[in-house]
């Protein structure tokens, strides 16, 4: 993927969540840069996650505005175009 076509990816996660860990490992394995926020520590980020996804389950992944709840590899691949 061309650098200027890299998707904007934001991962809403907590420090204990196993699916969050898997999500971040998957992104790293596929060389996808992402911003990570800890909704267990950051109330503003927690509210932002709820506004975007309408729920409190983590991880929530924002790929260019497409909101994915949970680590769904096939959905994530499709959103990332990989």
């Amino acid at each position, binding site marked *: 993927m061309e650098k200027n076509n890299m998707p904007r990816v934001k991962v809403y996660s*907590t420090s204990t*969540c*196993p699916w969050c860990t898997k999500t971040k490992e998957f992104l790293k394995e596929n060389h996808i840069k992402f911003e990570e926020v800890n*909704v*267990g520590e950051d109330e503003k980020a927690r509210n932002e996650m709820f506004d975007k996804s309408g729920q*409190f*389950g983590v991880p929530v992944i924002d790929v260019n505005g497409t909101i994915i709840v949970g680590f769904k590899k096939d959905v994530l691949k499709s959103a990332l175009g990989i």
Partner: protein
Amino acid sequence: MHDTIIVGAGCAGLAAAMYAGRLGLKTLLIGENIGGTITLTDVVENYPGFVKLTGQELADNLKKHAEAYKIEKAEVKVTKISRNHNCFLVETNEGQTYQGKTIIFATGTEWRKLNVPGEMEFANKGVHYCALCDGAVYKNKVIALAGGGDSAAKEALLLSQFASKVIVLARGGKLRGEPINNQRVAQNPKIEVFTNVNIKKIVGDKIVKALVLDRPVRDNTTLNVDAVFIAIGHVALSQLAKDIGVKTDGKGEIIIDRESKTNIHDFLPQEMFATQSSSKR
């Protein structure tokens, strides 16, 4: 074609893969989450050989042991299993189809639901089933924990690390956890336990606001909470097996004989059979 396809990659599936690998079978281990449900457990203190480790560490050890032998792995979800004239076909959510002479079902369990009004409506909006996954989202909030067994005790202890208060609501007359965990719950100043109480309804607007109970707690049948975590046991995930004619009991658990064979072990020629391996945390 694989000699055996192990469906489910939790503790049981990883153990089966290790043995199949040692036996020199052409083995495929397939599951949505290599490590399975144990990876959603914070601390494991009752697995022989390990005094204390995380569920993820235990899964990593089992995975490493299985990988010491020649096995194949696929971290994808199995969506369908079918039979044709000489083998089983295993299809995945990513479009692959694998052929196996035998199937080992290690599909484990899923969380038992309360089946009360509001549970589905507020799923992930204050209703949760995994403290390790979502507990930290409720930092300094009031959390109820439905359940009275050992898993409930452990979940309450974990939630107390995040919440300002954890209110355990147990259906029975006392907690049925291991004495060591019951004691930890009793000594935890953040945890309050109520017994002989059932949740009748979960209410809120966009998110959970309160629980309606079948008896007063704190002089009221409505308990204001920010979330409720449910830990009332597990039910078998056996639909894939049922779909190919495998018999299950009243709980949906696969019926096996002394050699772990199901009722369709003689469907295929010699040495081709379906069998079950299951795990419980």
